[in-house]
C-alpha cells in the first residue's frame, strides 16, 4: 500500500514539476528582453526585429480581439444548435447531425487553414468586406481597403474551430437537466420555448460556461489555421478588415528565422504572455463555475 502511494506520488509530482519547469524556463529565456524593455514590452506597439525594437501589444491585441469576436459569433450559434439538437428533433437525427458537427473538430488545423486561404479569404475580399463597408462603413472597424487576410478572417476561422466544442459541451449540459425539472415547468402551463429559457438553459448554465471557456482556450492558443489567414502584420489596425497578427502566429512564423538572441528571447516572452493569458482564463473559468455551483 505504502509503496503504491509513493509510486503514484512520483507521477503526480513529476507532472506538477513539469509545469513549473516549463514556466521557469519561459521566464529565464525571456530575461534578456525583460531587462532591455521591462514593462514597455507589453505596451509598446512597434515590432521590428531588424532594429531590435520589440513590443507585444499588436499580438496581444490580435489574440484577444480575434478570440473575442469568435466567441461573440460562436456562443449564440452553438447554444442555438445545441437546443435544436436536444429539444426539437428525434434522438436518431440528432445523433447524425451532432456527428457531422463534431467532424469539424476532427479536421486538422492546417486543412481548415487551407480552406480559409482558398474559400474564406476570397469570400471576405469579394463579398463580406464590400458589404460591410457599404452598409456599416460609418463604423471605423469596418473601413477598407479589403485584402482578404484580416483580423475578421482570423476570427471567423476560430469561430468554425470552436463551434463544435461549445455545441457538444452545451448539448451534454442540457442532457443532464432532470426530466422532472422540465416537467415541473410544463405542468405550470409553460410552452416548449419557456421551458427551454426558464428551466433548461439556466440549469445547464455552469456546463455551458465550461464549454465556452474551453472554446475560448482553444481560440487563444490556436496557431496554424489562423496564421494562414490573418495576414501576419505586426500592427494594431483600426479596421477589422485589415491584417493583424496573434501571439501564437508570430511565434510560429518567426521562431525559425530569429537570428538574434534578443529576437528569440522576445518570441519566448510572447509565449510566456500567451501562457499567462490562458492561465488567467482558466482561473476565471474556475471562479465562475464555483460561484455557479454554489448558487445552484
Amino acid at each position, binding site marked *: 500500500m505504502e509503496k503504491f502511494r509513493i509510486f503514484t506520488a512520483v507521477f503526480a509530482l513529476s507532472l506538477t514539476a513539469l509545469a513549473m519547469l516549463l514556466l521557469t524556463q519561459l521566464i529565464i529565456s525571456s530575461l534578456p528582453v525583460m531587462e532591455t524593455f521591462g514593462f514597455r514590452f507589453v505596451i509598446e506597439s512597434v515590432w521590428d526585429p531588424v532594429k531590435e525594437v520589440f513590443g507585444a501589444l499588436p499580438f496581444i491585441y490580435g489574440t484577444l480581439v480575434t478570440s473575442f469576436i469568435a466567441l461573440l459569433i460562436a456562443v449564440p450559434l452553438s447554444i442555438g444548435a445545441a437546443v435544436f439538437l436536444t429539444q426539437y428533433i428525434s434522438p436518431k437525427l440528432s445523433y447524425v447531425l451532432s456527428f457531422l458537427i463534431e467532424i469539424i473538430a476532427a479536421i486538422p488545423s492546417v486543412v481548415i487553414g487551407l480552406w480559409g486561404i482558398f474559400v474564406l479569404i476570397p469570400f471576405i475580399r469579394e463579398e463580406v468586406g464590400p458589404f460591410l463597408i457599404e452598409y456599416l462603413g460609418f463604423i471605423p472597424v469596418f473601413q477598407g481597403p479589403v485584402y482578404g487576410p484580416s483580423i475578421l478572417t482570423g476570427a471567423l476561422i476560430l469561430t468554425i474551430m470552436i463551434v463544435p466544442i461549445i455545441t457538444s459541451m452545451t448539448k451534454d449540459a442540457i442532457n443532464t437537466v432532470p426530466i*422532472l425539472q422540465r416537467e415541473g415547468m410544463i405542468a405550470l402551463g409553460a410552452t416548449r420555448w419557456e421551458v427551454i429559457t426558464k428551466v433548461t438553459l439556466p440549469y445547464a448554465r455552469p456546463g455551458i460556461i465550461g464549454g465556452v471557456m474551453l472554446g475560448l482556450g482553444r481560440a487563444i492558443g490556436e496557431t496554424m489555421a489562423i496564421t494562414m489567414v490573418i495576414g501576419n502584420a505586426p500592427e494594431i489596425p483600426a479596421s477589422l478588415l485589415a491584417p493583424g497578427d496573434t501571439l501564437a502566429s508570430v511565434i510560429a512564423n518567426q521562431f525559425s528565422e530569429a537570428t538574434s538572441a534578443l529576437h528569440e528571447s522576445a518570441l519566448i516572452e510572447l509565449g510566456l504572455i500567451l501562457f499567462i493569458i490562458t492561465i488567467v482564463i482558466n482561473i476565471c473559468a474556475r471562479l465562475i463555475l464555483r460561484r455557479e455551483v454554489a448558487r445552484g
Partner: protein
Amino acid sequence: MSTKIRIKSLNGWFGEKQVLKDINLDIEENSITAIIGPSGCGKTTLIRCINRMHEVTPGARVEGSVLLDEQDIYKEDPVKVRERIGMVFQRPNPFPTMSVLENAVAGLKLKGIRNRKLLAEKAEEVIKAVGLWDEVKNELNKPGTSLSGGQQQRLCIARALAVEPEVLLMDEPASALDPVSTMRLEDLIYELKKEYTIVIVTHNMQQAARVSDYTAFLYMGELIEYSNTKELFERPKNDLTERYISGRFG
C-alpha cells in the same frame, strides 16, 4: 356535489404496450380521489393523462376523452389545460436557479405578470396556504433547493396553487418524504379540498384510506373497483381489490 372530471373510455399505450384499458371514471368536485394499485398498474399514466403530461413522454399515446366541466381537454390547448389542472410530482422539483419566492410565482411569471408587488403578495398568499410561511419567511431569497425535502414539496404545491388551478393532481407526492413531513402533507391535502378538486396517486393504502373520499383501484391497466373510500376498504366488492388491500399481493 357535481362531477368535475369525466374520464371516458380512455385507452393508453407506451409504444406497443397497452397500459390503460378502457378506463371510465367520474371525479367529484371538491373531493379527494385516490388512485391505488401495484407498481406498473398504470396509475401514474392515468393521472398524467388528466393534464396531458403524458404527451411529454416519447412514445405515449392515448385514445378516448377526458372532460373537464364537460369540455374535452384533448380538443383544447395543452398549455391552457395545465393552467387549470396543476400537478405535483413524486419527488420535490423546485427550480434550483430560482429563489423560494421566485419558485412560488414561477407559473404567474409565465402568464406575463411582472408587477413585483403583486408577485410578492401572491407568493406570500400561497406559501401561507401550504403552511410554509413561518418556516421560510426569512429565507425567501435563498434557492428553492435549500429547503428540506418536506418544505420543498410544500413549496411545489404552493407553486401549483399560485396559477389558481381548479384541479390538483398529485403523483405519489409523499414518496420521497419522511413520516413527519408525510403527515403534514396529508393534513395540507385534506385542507386543500375545500377549494380544489384533488386526485392523488399513491402506493400507500393507509394514505389513501386516511385522506381520500373516493378510491379507485387499478390493476394491469384496468379499473377494477371505484367507490367511496370507506366502502372500498371495508367492503370491497371485487376479489382482487380485497386481496390487494389486505396485502396479499402488490
